[in-house]
């Protein structure tokens, strides 16, 4: 367990991810594997198929964005990977242990301070009491929120909440970080700032990210690979590799060029629905 590991070796405390989980992921060669995953909602007879035959690998350390129109099943897909729901068909493997999930709303616990929210995740992971405080402060520093430890959730701004939520997700020390439109409700400047934070954190750790958005530019700005989902039922329509070197900016010409191409494809997908 992570506790014993970090208790014996102070150097390991800075990067206390359970070694065996990392090994398992490396052996598997993927951080998550979805194989023919389908999901339907509703009673038998009046079923609505939301996802159909999704097969997708996320490589260790890879940053993948999932793109699709509203209601195409992106959140459902993340919930399946996070084991909050179970697939109707197909299999999902996450060899690195329980993934961290950052919800569209911050989902912080309002009865705890920012720091305590993070510490609860640490505690659930099994980090010893003596180390929690320090580790929480380190994570807050990582998202540049030094000094927010004792703040109540309602005392924080929207952007700060999202950053605390990011810190809490990182506190889980999962191999896989699932993010469901985490920045959708923010103004453009705050979002840019958080994009930079996220890219930096991702580059500094070896976490894999599966990031959902319906914002094409955001997808291109962040990802190594963009996966486009079609709607009703959700299937994988197309994929793009993004070879633009980081650090990128959302207004970069190359980001714009690829975004235009992807948007065109997305429009095509949506138009296809109008035809039947």
């Amino acid at each position, binding site marked *: 367990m992570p506790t014993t590991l970090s208790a014996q070796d102070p150097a390991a405390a800075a990067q206390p991810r359970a070694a065996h989980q990392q090994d398992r992921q490396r052996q598997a060669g993927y951080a998550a594997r979805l194989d023919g995953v389908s999901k339907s909602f509703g009673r038998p007879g009046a079923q609505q198929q939301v996802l159909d035959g999704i097969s997708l690998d996320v490589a260790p350390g890879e940053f993948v964005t999932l793109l699709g129109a509203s209601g195409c099943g992106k959140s459902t897909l993340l919930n399946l990977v996070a084991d909050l729901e179970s697939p109707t068909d197909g299999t999902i493997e996450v060899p690195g242990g*329980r993934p961290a999930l950052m919800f569209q709303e911050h989902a912080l616990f309002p009865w705890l301070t920012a720091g305590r929210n993070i510490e*609860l995740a640490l505690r659930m992971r099994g980090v010893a009491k003596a180390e929690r405080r320090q580790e929480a402060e380190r994570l807050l520093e990582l998202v540049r929120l030094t000094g927010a430890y004792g703040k*109540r959730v309602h005392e924080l*701004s*929207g952007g700060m909440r999202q950053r605390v939520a990011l810190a809490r997700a990182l506190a889980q020390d999962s191999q896989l970080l699932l993010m469901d439109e985490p920045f959708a409700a923010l103004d453009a400047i705050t979002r840019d700032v958080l994009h930079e934070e996220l890219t930096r954190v991702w580059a500094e750790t070896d976490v894999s990210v599966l990031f959902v958005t319906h914002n094409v530019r955001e997808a291109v700005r962040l990802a190594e690979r963009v996966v486009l989902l079609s709607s009703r039922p959700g299937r994988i329509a197309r994929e793009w590799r993004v070879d633009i070197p980081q*650090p990128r900016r959302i207004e970069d010409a190359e980001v714009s060029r690829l975004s235009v191409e992807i948007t065109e494809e997305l429009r095509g997908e949506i138009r296809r629905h109008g035809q039947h």
Partner: protein
Amino acid sequence: MASTETERPPESGASPAGGAQGAERDDAAELAGLEAGLDALDTRTQARTPLARTLREKALPPAVAVVLVLALWQSAFALELKPDYQLPSPLMVWDALAEEWYKGTILGVVWQSVSRGALGFLVALVVATPLGLLVARVKVVRAAIGPVLSGLQSLPSVAWVPAAIIWFGLTDATIYAVVLLGAVPSIANGLVAGVDRIQPLHLRAGKVIGATGLRGVRHVLLPAALPGYVSGLKQGWAFSWRSLMAAELIATSPELGVGLGQLLETGRVYQDMPLVLGAILLILLVGIGIELLLFAPLERRVLRNRGLLAAR
């Protein structure tokens, strides 16, 4: 915040962009400045209201109301609407209480009732909490006893007194049984309501960070349900106190000692109206006092911590 970024030695910041060290450092500084600005713009601060204003807004209105009631009472007495053995003046009631005070028994009487009420309430708490959790979280249990539990809340607990006397005789058990039957349903129902009002998002977030099973109950479910739970507690105390008075009033016996209910009954037996009114006042004062000193601050604290109070 910016200093940690700029003081970092160049070799540790090996960037994919190669030689763009200086530019990147500027970027980091700019980013930090931008963030500080955004945070400053967005952060809410709450100033505490000064004491004088709190007193004026919170303490003055009830004080005025009390004075008004006393004045009405005194004038009714002065007009002799009723003979004074039926309607004594405020001063006569005060004298009756003072007499009890000089006899040296009154504190014992109040303590007798308060300690019973508190003990009964604590036992009710211990019984009602797991019961409420079961009803809230286990479908079968909810279907089985949920309706009964909320029905019990509207049954005046004085109705249990005859039954309790037949079961337990004129003993403390009778009194505690009545208190429990009064308080347990409201505490349990409060907890059920609290759990029902939890945002599903918080439960999912709890599951994601690994707070499942009993750890989930302790770290997510109970704290999330706390606002409903606390109002259940508040109501539970009111019910405990009410049931206790009903029980004490009916179940009088030398072995049971003298509580406020028995004091009231004594007053009735001796046709001593000032004592009766004095006892009623004491019962009211204890009920209000505990509510104001214990439950109101508790509730306010819970709500303020969650930012639910400022909106009012």
